[in-house]
């Protein structure tokens, strides 16, 4: 998707940021969020969908550590369960893109010719749609569910991952070790798996992390519009949308999920950026 493309390319164009502390903070945050999301069922949290009209928009209290929302539901537990949705979609959809787009890009970059034209043409068609619009259209037709949204966003992430895989493959394909392997009679498959794949894996993973960040944002946007994961499942985007009506009385209802999303997206950006810096010899630590 063009937005994905340009945005991620712009991130990729920034010089590697120094700051080990920031990097490890990011890892810590992600680890915490992932752990909470996985262990959500076993944590001592209130139920995320329990409506308590007596305790609406309440501030922090022993019962509700982060307060309650407009319907009296516990914000902290909604945040944790919402993390599940964001992380599930945010991680699995790009994985889909990676496992389809990666090989596609590699094949396109390695074999060139008609395969490449086909792949590139296909990408361009997908990229011709503003991503949000396409996501909306597809989820409308498919119906709203975690699975459908994951599939949709996965499809949307294929083009940019294909591009990166292709570009990385192109840059390696005419290096000497590939020619040497071919001279030794290695089959295409062997070259692809043994010579090229290990080399493009790292840049691809770096890009993948950046894609994760963008997907979390898009999922958030969909939920915000009410067109993502259907209620009553809590999602960060949906919580922000709900919090909008309470901005004047209890702004934290909107800002807590916003903060959670911001930190998570930022963390993935930082980590992805650092991994990318590792792979790019130009930006290597000197």
């Amino acid at each position: 998707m063009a937005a994905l493309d340009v945005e991620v390319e712009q991130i990729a164009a920034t010089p590697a940021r120094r700051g080990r502390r920031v990097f490890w903070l990011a890892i810590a945050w992600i680890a915490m969020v992932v752990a909470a999301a996985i262990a959500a069922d076993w944590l001592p949290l209130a139920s995320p969908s329990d409506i308590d009209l007596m305790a609406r928009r309440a501030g922090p209290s022993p019962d509700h550590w982060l307060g309650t929302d407009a319907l009296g539901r516990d914000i902290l537990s909604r945040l944790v369960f919402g993390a599940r949705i964001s992380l599930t979609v945010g991680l699995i959809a790009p994985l889909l893109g990676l496992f389809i787009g990666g090989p596609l890009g590699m094949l396109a970059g390695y074999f060139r010719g008609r395969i490449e034209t086909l792949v590139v043409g296909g990408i361009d068609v997908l990229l011709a749609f503003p991503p949000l619009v396409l996501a909306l259209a597809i989820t409308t037709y498919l119906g709203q569910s975690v699975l459908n949204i994951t599939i949709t966003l996965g499809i949307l992430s294929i083009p940019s991952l294909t591009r990166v895989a292709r570009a990385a493959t192109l840059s390696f394909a005419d290096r000497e070790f590939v020619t040497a392997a071919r001279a030794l009679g290695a089959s295409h498959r062997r070259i692809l798996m043994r010579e090229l794949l290990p080399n493009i894996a790292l840049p691809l993973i770096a890009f993948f992390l950046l894609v994760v960040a963008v997907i979390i944002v898009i999922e958030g946007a969909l939920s915000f519009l009410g067109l993502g994961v259907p209620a009553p499942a809590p999602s960060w985007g949906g919580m922000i949308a709900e919090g909008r009506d309470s901005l004047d009385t209890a702004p934290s209802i909107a800002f807590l999920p916003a903060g959670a999303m911001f930190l998570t997206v930022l963390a993935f950006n930082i980590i992805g950026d650092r991994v990318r810096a590792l792979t790019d010899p130009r930006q290597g630590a000197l």
Partner: protein
Amino acid sequence: MLGFVGRRLVYLVPVLIAVSLLTFLVAALLPGDLAVAMLADEATPEKMAALRSEMGLDQPLVLQYLHWLGGALAGDLGRSLRTGEKVLSAILQRLPVTLELMLFAQLIALAIGVPVGILCAVRNGGAFDRLMTAIAFGKLSVPAFMLAIVLIYVFSVTLKWLPATGYVPLDEDVVGNLRSFVLPAVTLGFGEWPVLMRVLRSDMIATLQEDYIAMARAKGLKRWRILLVHALKPSSLTLVTVTGINIGRLIGGTVLVETIFALPGIGRLLIGAINTRDFVVLQGVVLFVATGFVLVNFVVDILYGVLDPRIRYGRA
């Protein structure tokens, strides 16, 4: 030159066809029955059959596609299932609002991005540069809707300076109209300026190291003249390209922003169609938007070729 344009045109047509095909297929392959979805509670076998044949749903897929495409090329995108209004006229009616929003957003992005980019390039590595780079990086993690909430909270709820929603048509009240666009345009524009600024900055850093800049200094020219005339002009090529690409991103962004701020633009039309399951409108809007997107990118490509002759004659 003509050859260059011609080549791009030849490439354009298949893309447009593919776009229309995809738009159509997404709709046509939906699980379940369109007639059922539309009629919902009132579905009876006779009504469904009648509706299907009326909408041509019982014909082979290819024929349906061609029928639809033919209509689209003639300007007929069907009628809204809900209001019966012609889709194309509904789009055209809302287009000015969306365009106004995009224009303002782009202007804001430029107004912030260009000066900041220049300043960062000039003071490369300095405190300001590092600060702005950090802000730009952080900004990439703040999506439009989040920013919108923050802006609404600060400017509408707390300071009460600007309306949170509501649109005033231009011919009614110019000031009111502009006021209703401030928050939406700032939301969108703020999302774009980091990208602009980063690109301009790296381009200008490279330009500022060129010999002709040293020469300009040796000629004793004023600082601002060197920056704006000698340095900015060669860097403007990338600026144009990024602006062009931005327009594409903006199109997607308007959907969100129009919904949040209740502006009657195309984005809102799309969301409305989704919510009311008005598939005809949905299809028409998606086609319109995607086509516009492709055409904008096409123009940007041409413009790029015009500005940089190296692109015209093959890989730069």
